[in-house]
């Protein structure tokens, strides 16, 4: 029994999401190999080789794999899939994009967003925005899985010494091409992996007012997040959205400011270790999941809090 973990990376750096997927692989048992599919990604393969518990790294390096196009990456995974009992992807935008293509081609079910491993064929996963946890068993010969990264503590990035084996990179499918990317530059930590997250909701009232969270996030070294309502209203960018269909986060500290707490939002943050809610409405559902609730006007409370810490 050997598990293949598909590495999340940007051709230069191995992303932390990979370490959580490797942790899930360790919970399944057997050997763990990592596939790095990229272009000029030798450094990523070397980083993957050092990850604790990894016994082999496969490096597929080719121009067709530079931008992570689903058609090419899925073909690459399928090219090496033959020897594996389990194929794991982190449940990131990239992993969710590619994994079902692999599963369909192998004619097996995919198990999405697992939060626990019960045995080599039985897993727990949230359904209905996390309002229920299903235990599912797969009878397929190969298990294609995406891993909710917040549910598995990352393995150590250092300490391993796996061999790197180069495999032939697939050719371009010819049906899709990369046009461009708009990534906001930020000195703040990445939302999905941040230890502290400060999130704003509709209560902020405008994109201008949203900036009131900046000094607090700066002081805490926090990532910024937002509710769907705040994103839909244009107060915050799309990729800040925390919730059922946005990012799933589980930081040490989650500070919800002016967020009422719709079930879809709670689905994205209720596994945070400590939750603080600041809202002027004492009846807001967010207080139902908060460890510490403070009823008050956020425009007074937030600057005061920023000052006090």
């Amino acid at each position, binding site marked *: 029994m050997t598990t293949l973990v598909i590495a999340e990376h940007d051709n230069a750096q191995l992303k932390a999401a990979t370490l959580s997927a490797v942790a899930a692989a360790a919970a399944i048992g057997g050997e763990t190999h990592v596939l790095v599919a990229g272009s000029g990604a030798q450094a990523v393969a070397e980083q993957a080789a050092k990850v604790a518990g990894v016994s082999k790294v496969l490096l597929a390096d080719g121009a067709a794999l530079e931008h992570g196009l689903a058609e090419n990456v899925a073909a690459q995974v399928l090219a090496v899939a033959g020897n594996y009992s389990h194929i794991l992807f982190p449940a990131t935008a990239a992993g969710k994009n590619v994994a079902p293509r692999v599963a369909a081609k192998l004619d097996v079910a995919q198990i999405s967003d697992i939060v626990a491993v019960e045995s080599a064929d039985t897993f727990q996963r949230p359904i*209905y925005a996390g309002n229920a946890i299903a235990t599912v068993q797969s009878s397929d010969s190969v298990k294609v899985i995406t891993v909710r990264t917040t549910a598995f503590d990352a393995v150590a990035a250092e300490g391993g010494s796996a061999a790197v084996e180069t495999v032939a990179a697939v050719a371009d499918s010819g049906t*899709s091409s990369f046009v461009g990317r708009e990534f906001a530059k930020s000195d703040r930590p990445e939302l999905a992996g941040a230890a502290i997250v400060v999130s704003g909701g509709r209560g902020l009232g405008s994109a201008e007012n949203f900036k009131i969270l900046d000094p607090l996030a700066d002081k805490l070294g926090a990532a910024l997040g937002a509710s769907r309502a705040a994103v839909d209203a244009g107060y915050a960018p799309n990729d800040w959205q925390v919730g059922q269909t946005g990012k799933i986060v589980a930081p040490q500290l989650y500070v919800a400011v002016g967020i009422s707490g719709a079930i879809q939002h709670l689905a994205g943050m209720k596994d945070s270790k400590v939750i*603080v809610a600041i809202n002027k409405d004492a009846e807001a559902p967010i207080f139902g999941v908060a460890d510490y609730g403070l009823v008050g006007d956020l425009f007074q409370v937030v600057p005061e809090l920023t000052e006090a810490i």
Partner: protein
Amino acid sequence: MKVLVPVKRVVDYNVKVRVKSDQSGVDIANVKMSMNPFDEIAVEEATRLKEAGVATEVVAVSCGVAQSQETLRTAMAIGADRGVLVQTDVELQPLAVAKLLKALVDQEQPKLVILGKQAIDDDANQTGQMLAALLGWPQATFASKVEVQGDKVQVTREVDGGLETIALTLPAIVTTDLRLNEPRYVTLPNIMKAKKKPLDTVTPESLGVDVAPRLKTLKVVEPAARKAGIMVPDVATLVDKLKNEAKVI
């Protein structure tokens, strides 16, 4: 250009589901059912393509129980021209749905299939990608902008860290994210008109597709409840609690 739009009947997004006491699943008897919100965005996008003269026909498809007809009528009230129901009482998993849709795509020969990125009941986020793989078509998931240009479609996608734009050669698969559009309000005259639009019913057997589930649900339980929190009177108390009790700052 024909556009196919699969739609799923799901528990309404405002309903907080309850887990059944025998742990066999969630209780969906007597709860409000609606079209999956992401599928509504897909129907709206297809309808706008038709209104812009890009699409010539919009076909809505639903797989599931007989009541999914209502979901198809909603799609036709938004703007789909006709509906196809693949009727079955079997629990359909994403791979089975993708196979049913492939069989329909083979018959209907659309140039574009627009699906919701995920259904809000099983939260699987698989069907569009699986359909693309089975057809050997390119895909653009999590779309926030779709522009058809000749034999290509350019799609802006919501990805971790920002936005990415890719171009696909048609035929292709697109799955919708929240910001692609805001679905129109369905008016009564359009609901009446939708009742007269054609709706065909087929079965998995007639399409030659084996829909037997591959995953067995052993049990469904409530998530672990969070320990009850406390209300703090002021910022000073909050900071003290975070520093000395929770020790997170």
